[in-house]
């Protein structure tokens, strides 16, 4: 959409667009030609600088109080006009308050540190019974004080005080100045470490007691101030986040002209809006500017222009959009694979983890973390986790697994219980069945991917018939190669769960009808691929490797079962059960140890299952599924406007 008006209308146009919150501005960079010669980037509306300073002040207050607008819950919305009036009056008073408290806190901290330093100086003299001021200010005497390993007899006349009550022993010696050097040499030989004598007029022990008392009092005062700050935080939180939002919205609107192309008296804004909003925006702009605006819907090229993309999925698929965004947003004319992802990803995960207890634990985690995790992305991931855990529970009921123990019924369809521990003589796991089933899932998933590519090509290239036909033939070629190869394999060997075509009559050198048909399909497929792009032939082995990659569903699943059963075997079979026969104190300790091993093993397995199962399932989508058809590279739809959480207009 193109909007042109004179600069007088700039303010009303900007406000109207911001209010509707659907216009994605195509930024004018001032570089390209095509029609924009002579235009420059606009200047912000007046008042932007002033508002920016106010926002800075509010943000610094939020910092001091530790308020984070994104993590704050909404408690009703405040009206904009009343808020604006309050900002000027209250902001300065809050700031003055905060400054005073900060100054107070700093003062207290400085004092505490000073007292602690003095305490350290005084500590060694705690048992010295005389006032410390008597150790200073002599003309004919010097005083030495320090730590010494043991009491010594000085070679000169001296008054000494020795005490072992302090660590390192205290020696205080008053010596005539004339014999100071001799005494110092002697004492340092004896291992004296000098310490400074504090310059205070007191008896050490009394002053130490006083300092300690003061420090406790000041710490209590500091805590009081912290409490006061916290109480103020509660009081001002709602006001501050509302002001933050209001001012941010204002500044965004003021700075919008920076993204428009302007001349001396007019401006041009180009942007994208959803097709259903065209009429609403046009009429809104016409009323806001009194008809003094030119609005036009422009043509665009769906293939080459970067159109901003917003998802349009049913509600149950919406949380999986975050998994799509991790890879890349879909392009404009592509099929959005989010639906497939939202259904198949939990199925893969359940197939791998397949345990009722782990599923229940993950379900509990997904509900429990709802209080802790804030933010859009986190909440979506938690919903995805909930789906994964439900799928895991369903598969656990099918596979009859609970924390590695078999449930009272036999596994339905496929048996994953390995021959470990109590199950050593039971039914062996259906490994080949699992592998073949995973291969089938792979074949079908990949065929689906190629079919989606065909559909995408027919939409993208609906104007270039020849290119479209080339791509469609190429993709059909890939499908033929895969199924042709399958037919050949089925005609040669009988694989469980796959059609057995070995019994058909043989025609040429061991190939029967199905084999010949398979070879024909294979060769046609290769020709199809080659006519699209001959270099793609180097990717032929991926037909095999990508399908076999799906066998990880079976392998990772079996390894998860194995860890669970081994943990049970070690904890119960090897540690707890023998100890149950001998219930002495050692026995109880051993039983507790066994329980610890049990819990540790299963916690580890849950985490491994979640991370490993989730990663492998999503990797199968990203690498094996998406590379068949997905282009991605879509730009995120970022409309000019704001969803107001704390204010209302």
């Amino acid at each position, binding site marked *: 959409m193109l909007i042109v008006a004179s600069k007088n209308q700039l303010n009303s146009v900007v406000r109207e667009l911001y209010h509707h919150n659907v216009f994605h501005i195509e930024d004018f960079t001032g570089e390209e030609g095509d029609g924009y010669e002579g235009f420059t980037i606009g200047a912000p509306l007046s008042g932007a600088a002033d508002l920016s300073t106010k926002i800075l002040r509010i943000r610094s207050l939020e910092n001091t109080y530790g308020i984070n607008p994104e993590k704050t819950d909404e408690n009703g919305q405040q009206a904009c006009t009343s808020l604006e009036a309050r900002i000027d009056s209250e902001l300065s008073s809050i700031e003055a308050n905060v400054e005073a408290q900060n100054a107070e806190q700093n003062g207290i901290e400085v004092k505490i540190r000073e007292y602690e330093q003095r305490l350290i100086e005084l500590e060694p003299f705690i048992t010295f019974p005389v006032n410390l001021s008597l150790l200073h200010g002599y003309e004919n005497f010097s005083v030495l004080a320090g730590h010494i390993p043991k009491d010594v007899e000085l070679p000169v006349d001296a008054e000494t005080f020795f005490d072992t009550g302090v660590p390192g022993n205290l020696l205080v010696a008053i010596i005539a100045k004339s014999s100071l050097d001799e005494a110092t040499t002697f004492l340092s030989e004896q291992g004296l470490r000098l310490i400074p004598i504090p310059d205070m007029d007191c008896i050490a022990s009394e002053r130490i007691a006083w300092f300690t008392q003061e420090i406790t009092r000041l710490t209590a005062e500091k805590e009081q101030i912290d409490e006061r700050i916290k109480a103020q935080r509660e009081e001002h939180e709602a006001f501050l986040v509302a002001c933050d939002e209001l001012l941010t919205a204002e500044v965004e609107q003021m700075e919008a002209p920076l993204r428009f192309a302007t001349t001396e008296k007019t401006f041009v804004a180009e942007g994208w809006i959803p097709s259903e909003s065209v009429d609403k925006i046009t009429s809104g702009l016409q009323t806001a500017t009194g008809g003094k605006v030119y609005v036009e819907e422009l043509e665009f090229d769906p293939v080459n222009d970067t159109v901003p993309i917003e998802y349009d999925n049913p509600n149950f698929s919406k949380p999986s959009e975050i998994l799509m965004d991790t890879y890349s947003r879909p392009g404009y004319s592509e099929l959005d694979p989010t639906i497939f992802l939202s259904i198949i990803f939990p199925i893969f995960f359940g197939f791998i983890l397949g345990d009722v207890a782990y599923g229940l634990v993950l379900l509990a985690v997904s509900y429990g973390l709802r209080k802790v995790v804030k933010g859009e992305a986190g909440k979506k991931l938690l919903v995805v986790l909930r789906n994964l855990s439900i799928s895991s529970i369903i598969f656990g009921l099918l596979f009859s697994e609970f924390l590695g123990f078999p449930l009272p019924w036999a596994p339905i369809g496929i048996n994953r219980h390995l021959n470990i521990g109590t199950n050593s003589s039971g039914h062996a796991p259906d490994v080949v069945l699992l592998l073949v089933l995973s291969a089938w899932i792979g074949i079908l998933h990949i065929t689906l991917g190629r079919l989606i590519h065909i559909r995408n090509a027919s939409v993208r290239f609906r104007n270039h018939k020849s290119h479209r036909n080339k791509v469609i033939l190429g993709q059909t070629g890939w499908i033929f190669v895969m199924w042709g190869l399958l037919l050949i394999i089925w005609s040669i060997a009988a694989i469980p769960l796959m059609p057995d075509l070995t019994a058909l009559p043989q025609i040429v050198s061991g190939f029967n009808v199905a084999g010949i048909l398979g070879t024909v399909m294979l060769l046609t497929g290769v020709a199809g691929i080659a006519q699209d792009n001959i270099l793609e032939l180097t990717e032929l082995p991926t037909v095999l490797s990508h399908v076999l*990659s799906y*066998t990880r569903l*079976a392998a990772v699943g079996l390894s998860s079962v194995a860890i669970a059963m081994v943990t049970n075997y070690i904890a119960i079979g090897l540690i707890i059960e023998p100890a149950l026969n001998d219930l002495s104190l050692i026995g109880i300790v051993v039983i507790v140890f066994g329980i610890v091993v049990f819990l540790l093993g299963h916690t580890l397995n849950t985490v491994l299952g979640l991370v490993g199962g989730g990663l492998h399932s999503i990797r199968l989508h990203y690498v094996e599924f998406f590379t068949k058809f997905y282009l991605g590279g879509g730009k995120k739809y970022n409309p000019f406007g704001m969803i107001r959480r704390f204010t209302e207009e």
Partner: protein
Amino acid sequence: MVVETIMTVEVAQASAMGMKAIGAGMAVGLTGLATSFAQYSIGTAAVGAVSENKDIFGLVLILTVLPETIVIFGLVVALLMLF
């Protein structure tokens, strides 16, 4: 001194079982080494990238786990051997 063992069917079967076990162990062990070498360098680069830009975490996590294929194939071979 040479110890002579009489080769019976049970002995042959047991030693076949033992060989299979060694084969399965080597399959998983050696492929595990290969995967660890691959994921080692990718993981180092991934941590470096994430420390500069937190948004990219999901993508680098997937990239780091990409070479897991190698050890999965080793596991599949081991399972096919043992069962």
